[in-house]
């Protein structure tokens, strides 16, 4: 199993950007520290005062897997299947990261944008909210929310570089921004697994696996994990996969953490399943077919 998984991982980790900008390596600036109960430093004595992940809207909005894997009814009417729905989300996730690379924003902005994107489609349909417009708008909004604003006209400029047939203009992005804010209920703070990762890796003494784990986390955004699990659990799952791959024994360390290993293993399995299912890149025709279903008149 190990070998197989490694083969799967190898090309993926390379193709998916590890770091979208030069100013941020794996130790990059991820300012919202999730506060896993296992980390006594993060949980300082001020805990009762501090707004942390456990009091955040992100935590309160975590969903059950069944709630995420639902095709919005309007899209269903147009014949969109769950598989196609997921496929479009994966495709647009890649799109957002490519756009993010073009705009030279930090990985954190990309991750936040993807989270917004995925969150929107737990509430809105792709029929009403065209993914091709929502995706860049999410990146634009995330760049503001993460304090590294990219001007809207620059976003447009970069979209046109990677996507020649982009039909929307500045006005559409700004209008969609308002709709997104509403759809997100103005909850803009997102916690990510990256921060927890570096702390955890140091603790477990596997800092040499940072690159691998970081890539795994990047890939985890192609799924809806960030909407379902607390970020530090995703980080743990990635560490778990990495440690199994590299044949490092972390059993004792995981035991000390007092986390629910079943959850960690479930997340790990989901990630591995994902690699298995999407070993080949999704053919463009399938994406286009799915997208054209959305634009068809019922």
């Amino acid at each position, binding site marked *: 199993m190990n070998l197989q998984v490694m083969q799967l991982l190898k090309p993926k980790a390379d193709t998916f950007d590890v770091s979208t900008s030069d100013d*941020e390596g794996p130790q990059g*600036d991820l300012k919202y520290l999730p506060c896993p109960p296992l980390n006594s430093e993060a949980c300082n004595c001020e805990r009762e005062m501090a707004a942390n992940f456990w009091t955040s809207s992100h935590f*309160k909005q*975590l*969903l059950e897997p069944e709630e995420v894997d639902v095709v919005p009814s309007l899209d269903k009417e147009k014949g969109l299947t769950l598989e196609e729905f997921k496929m479009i989300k994966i495709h647009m996730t890649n799109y957002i990261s490519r756009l993010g690379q073009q705009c030279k924003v930090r990985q954190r902005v990309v991750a936040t944008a993807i989270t917004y994107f995925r969150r929107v489609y737990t509430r809105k349909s792709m029929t009403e909210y065209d993914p091709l417009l929502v995706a860049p708008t999410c990146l634009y909004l995330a760049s503001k929310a993460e304090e590294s604003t990219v*001007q*809207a006209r620059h976003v447009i400029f970069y979209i046109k570089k990677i996507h020649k047939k982009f039909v929307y203009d500045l006005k559409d992005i700004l209008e969609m921004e*308002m709709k997104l804010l*509403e759809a997100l209920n103005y909850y803009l703070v997102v916690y990510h697994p990256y921060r927890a990762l570096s702390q955890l890796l140091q603790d477990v003494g596997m800092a040499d696996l940072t690159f691998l784990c970081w890539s795994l986390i990047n890939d985890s955004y192609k799924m809806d994990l960030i909407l379902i699990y607390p970020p530090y659990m995703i980080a743990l799952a990635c560490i778990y996969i990495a440690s199994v791959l590299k044949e490092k024994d972390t059993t004792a360390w995981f035991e000390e953490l007092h986390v*629910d290993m079943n959850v960690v293993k479930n997340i790990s399995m989901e990630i591995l399943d994902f690699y298995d299912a999407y070993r080949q890149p999704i053919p463009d025709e399938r994406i286009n077919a799915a997208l054209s279903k959305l634009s068809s008149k019922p």
Partner: protein
Amino acid sequence: MAAAAPGQLNLDESPSWGSRSVDCFEKLEQIGEGTYGQVYMAKEIRTGEIVALKKIRMDNEREGFPITAIREIKILKKLHHENVIQLKEIVTSPGPEKDEQGRSADGNKYKGSIYMVFEYMDHDLTGLADRPGMRFSVAQIKCYMRQLLTGLHYCHVNQVLHRDIKGSNLLIDNEGNLKLADFGLARSFSGDHNANLTNRVITLWYRVIMLWTDLQNCYLELQNMAQLSTCGLSDAFLQSFCMENQFCLGKTRMNMMGLSHPFDALALRFFSQSFDMILLHMPEQLNKIFELCGGPDEAIWPGVTKMPWYTNFKPTRPMKKRLREVFKHFDRHALELLERMLTLDPSQRISAKDALDAEYFWNDPLPCDPKSLPKYESSHEFQTKKKRQQQRQHEEMAKRQKLQHPPQHARLPPIQPTGQAHPQLRPGPNQPIHNSQPPVVAGPSHHYGKPRPSGGPNRYPPGGNPSGGYNPNRGGQGGGYSGGPYPQGRGPPYAASGMPGAGPRGGGGGGGSGGGYGVGAPNYPQAGPYGSGSGAGRGPNMIGGNRNQQYGWQQ
């Protein structure tokens, strides 16, 4: 874990995942002017609940939803504390809404307005303190002060800097609760990483200056209050102000927790950047601080002389710490706390948290229970200010017609030099304060970078009037500490209160001898321009005048 059924919870709150329309509320009256929009008192039609609606100004058509609003929303959604204002929800006005100019939006939602809905608070501190005859008891002051510090501490723990602490942003309800409000300038900072404070946000350095002036304003305002109340509610605010302020001074925006924080050193790097700008534009403000707290030197701030900017800003002459002298009427504990809060060296300055443990709060009279406080009729700075402004504007107009800018005005006594910085930084409503000041200066030209208007009556040489601002005992002419530094609009509630006419000092104008500016007077016996104008022009501020008399500002 995620099993806490968060979905249902959210569904209850907001079934459609959209915002409600502002039509759910009935606007009652305008109660304030926020950093980027008006604030209204409104009633929720369905429940009858009174709320405050803060309109988000959407005038940047090219960059969509303002980033300032994004910051404020992000921060407010993160903070939940009894001493921090609670954001209840956000509502939109979808359709074309006519704005003040009668333009109507074209139906696009993004051109509509967005409102933040807050709990309604009866007063803001400035408004409350400004009520005629208002006098806070010591226990009451301590009660407010403690709440302020608790709220501030909560913000700091959550890595939020408010950056705009001042009377009008401290809201008080009739239960005696005090809450921090207006996080429009607030920023999150990260405790262990400073990458977000790099050149990317360079424009913010200008903000710092604006902020700085604000604080300066507030600072002087507090000086006024310090003199008015016998045992300093003001010092409370002075303290909190200074905690914020010092982070501007010493640590830029990083950290007003003061304290020996690990990233002090980093902060100082930013200091050097912003400092130049501060230095360039408002050395007077710095001087003010130094006059009160002493000039920075190795003795009170080890390492300060090693800092890159030190030669630029070190005081031209040695300055002694005058805190104890200036606030000698404070009781021992208040003074002690004040001193620790006004420490220049950030590593020695007291944090909000430690301040809460200070003797001051644990000695008689103890802070009272908020609920025991008297209830007052609602008072907001905005309203009182507006009334006064109108009145003043009227007077100014009349006066300007009389005086046609006599040339000698170009040589004016050195007034508190702060004054001239404001008109550009804060283009307030257009009503000049100095009768002789060309209206242009107060205009909406937003030149943060521009040194100061050249020529003209408001070009006062700096430094001519040290200490006059807050020492009630110096300068026989006494207490007109407030006149100069406040330009219109933003001004303190007491602006002009000490001016001739109302004050016991000036003898109705002519004899003013520039007294409005305190100690400066002796040097400028012919303080003409204000002398003649003052009786007519500055007089009308009856509230201020009354207060001065009432509280015996001269001691």
